[in-house]
């Protein structure tokens, strides 16, 4: 990952080609390259980079001449706030709608639930964002449309981000529930006289939830790493803008940190999902315990 990111950043271009509107003379370019250590051979640059990482030094932004950590630390609260709001909304809306879509399959409310899912997939983020701004910000003045000073500022961005995620949760949950509902153990549960509610929550939903956990985990990765479109439209300067800005300017240290951090987030979230699997599925817990006992 380190090697790929390091090499990929340098292949993408030279930061001094993008940072100075009036360009640079050859002498100025050489001067700046020396200042940021970019005049050394690539292997030497890589060794220096890894050595710095080992001491917790993530480098200095070439564009802003500030520690990389400072840039991301400033951006993180907006992104985390938005991620938390979107995630909560996704679960609060997606899960019930998914259950409704499965339980009312072929009927009106099932169709409504799937219609919501379809819209979430079909409408691009930026279109939905602008529509929400125009309706709730411009026409109705119900909600603030830019900035992040209060929790209310996160409502429209969270709805925008959550729309596609809700769609995914609804679709997958419906599919899994329909699959589980057709299995023998559910038929048996009904045959033993359990109430429909107990069958649903005790036998169907629990089994259908596992794949949905994976989907939700994947979505959480994306939320934490920021959404450029949402941040731009709603003026919420978060991690997405920081990272994409670094890509545009070829700001190597910021870019490299962003990729590494993204990878770590993916690993951490996947580990968390795996741990939740063990909590949700006793078979996994039993299997792990048996393996441990054998060892």
């Amino acid at each position, binding site marked *: 990952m380190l090697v790929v990111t390091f090499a990929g950043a340098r292949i993408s271009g030279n930061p001094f080609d993008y940072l100075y509107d*009036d360009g640079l003379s050859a002498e100025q370019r050489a001067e700046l390259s020396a200042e940021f250590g970019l005049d050394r051979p690539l292997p030497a640059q890589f060794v220096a980079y890894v050595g710095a990482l080992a001491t917790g030094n993530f480098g200095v932004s070439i564009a802003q001449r500030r520690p990389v950590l400072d840039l991301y630390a400033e951006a993180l609260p907006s992104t985390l706030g938005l991620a938390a709001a979107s995630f909560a909304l996704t679960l609060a809306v997606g899960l019930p709608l998914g259950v409704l879509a499965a339980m009312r399959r072929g009927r009106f409310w099932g169709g409504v639930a799937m219609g919501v899912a379809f819209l979430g997939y079909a409408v691009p983020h930026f279109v939905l964002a602008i529509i929400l701004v*125009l309706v709730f910000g411009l026409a109705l*003045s119900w909600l603030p*449309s*830019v900035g992040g000073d209060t929790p209310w500022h996160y409502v429209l961005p969270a709805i925008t981000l959550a729309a596609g995620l809700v769609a995914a949760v609804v679709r997958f949950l419906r599919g899994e529930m329909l699959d589980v509902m057709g299995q023998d153990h559910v038929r048996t549960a009904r045959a033993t006289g359990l109430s429909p509610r107990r069958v649903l929550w005790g036998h169907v939903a629990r089994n259908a939830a596992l794949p949905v956990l994976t989907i939700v985990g994947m979505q959480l990765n994306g939320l934490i790493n920021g959404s450029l479109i949402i941040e731009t439209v709603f*003026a919420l*300067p978060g991690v997405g803008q920081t990272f994409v800005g670094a890509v545009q300017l070829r700001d190597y240290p910021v870019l490299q940190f962003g990729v590494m951090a993204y990878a770590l987030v993916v690993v951490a979230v996947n580990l968390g999902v795996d741990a939740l699997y063990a909590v949700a599925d006793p078979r996994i817990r039993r299997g792990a315990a048996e393996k441990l006992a054998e060892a």
Partner: protein
Amino acid sequence: MSLARRDLMAAAAAGTLAASLPIPAMANPRELRVGVQTHTRTLDFQAETGNNTAQFLDCLCDTLVEIDTRSATPRYMPGLATEWRSISPTVTEFRLREGVRMHDGTLMDADDVVFSLQRVFTPTEARYRGNHGRYFSNFARVEKQDAMTVRIVTHRPDPLVEALLSCRNAGIASKEQADAMGLDRAAQSPAGSGPYRVAAFRPNADLTVERFPDHWGPAAPLDRVRFTRVSEMAPRVAALLNGDVDFIVSIPPDQQAPIRARRGLRVVETTWPMFFLYVLNMNRPEIADPRIRRALNLAIDRNALASALWGGKAHAPRGHYFRGFADHDFLNDLNLLPHDPAEARRLMRAAGYNGAEIVLSFQSAYYTYGDQGAQAVLDMWKDVGFRARLQVIEGFGQDSSQFFTRDWSNPLYYPDMLGAFDTHWAQASWVTRDKWFAPEKFPAYQPLYDAVRFGTDPQARRDAYRRLVILTETEMVPWVLLYQPAEAYAMRANIGWEIPHNVRPYQLPFRAGLVNVA
């Protein structure tokens, strides 16, 4: 009544109701919230060259010489210098104002002036070379005479010393602060002496300035001003209509209707003394012949561009001069940029144009209507027989010689007839450095330029500039001027603010006497 018609009427009623609703009241009339389209990476007075940073500098710094922004005729006044006198043709002595407190609590003295200006007079760091080339290539050094006296030395006698030192890029910053925290950290929160100081700064996103209580001049009229970047148009307009911000910038003509329709808001418009243009690479073989470059200009219907893109609110240029700028009034009879496709074709034949492809390179979504303008220009070029295509690029890179064109702007940086030309086309600018602009091929150019730039007789300067404008437009042809763009600001109706005189385009002045909130 059908469902569709009922819904439309409900929507219309809601829209009408919304238009009649007042804007939510300002939370605090002493605190202004401004939605800006672009923002800045740093606040270094001498390093930043762009229009994006120019928005903020007037709040933060002062200059040795100030310019009267209430007078249409440029008038220079004491600023951080109380008096100045010419010691010799190349030396001007400035007596500094006593008791000027900087934002870091220190008192301004000659060391601050030397620190601030010397780094851009003789830049040793790349970050200062841009403004050196734009303003200060004729400035040699600052000499400290005593704690409150400096002498500024130019290479040649310079009639524009006052004008250039009144630009905010000559703003004075605290040397003590830079020594204590280093240039990089100081650039994030520079200690100037302006009526506002930095309260919080998030680069490229948000800047809050607060009244500086120890300002030497009239107190700032506002407690705080917050500049928030809202780069997308619709949210920026919605933020104003919603009451999330009080003042927004850069509203194209076709987006102003909902603002004008809303009670409690108003729009302030201007046509800037600046051009959007394409620089032509005079050394690119396909367009090296000036007749080809002239044909590229004559093919363009600028009135159509100004009308179609800007609703008629932009000006179609007729040469490198600004209609509406008093110092250029003597040029108003010139029309050097007619739309003349027949003449364009004749020039192409005379030059032996062989169908070589011309690539119009530009940065997408950088200048207002830049994308649409490029598409229109491309069609106009093709109409006269050029083979051409568009190329969207991120940056012009190290080897700019490969490009035919680049998009650019030429604002009037200081109120002088040469205020837009010199800052962009001088010898120290990138166009000459990168050999896009080749004045050495035209022997008449340099004497004319020198006569305007360094001449002291007003009539002689005007005569020389007139000849320079004609020479550049008809014989040298280093550019394609597109239009003088319109700019509009929208704000609450209780905000008293007009575009001041003699300020650089896009500067946002919120000093005493320039803004009030009823």
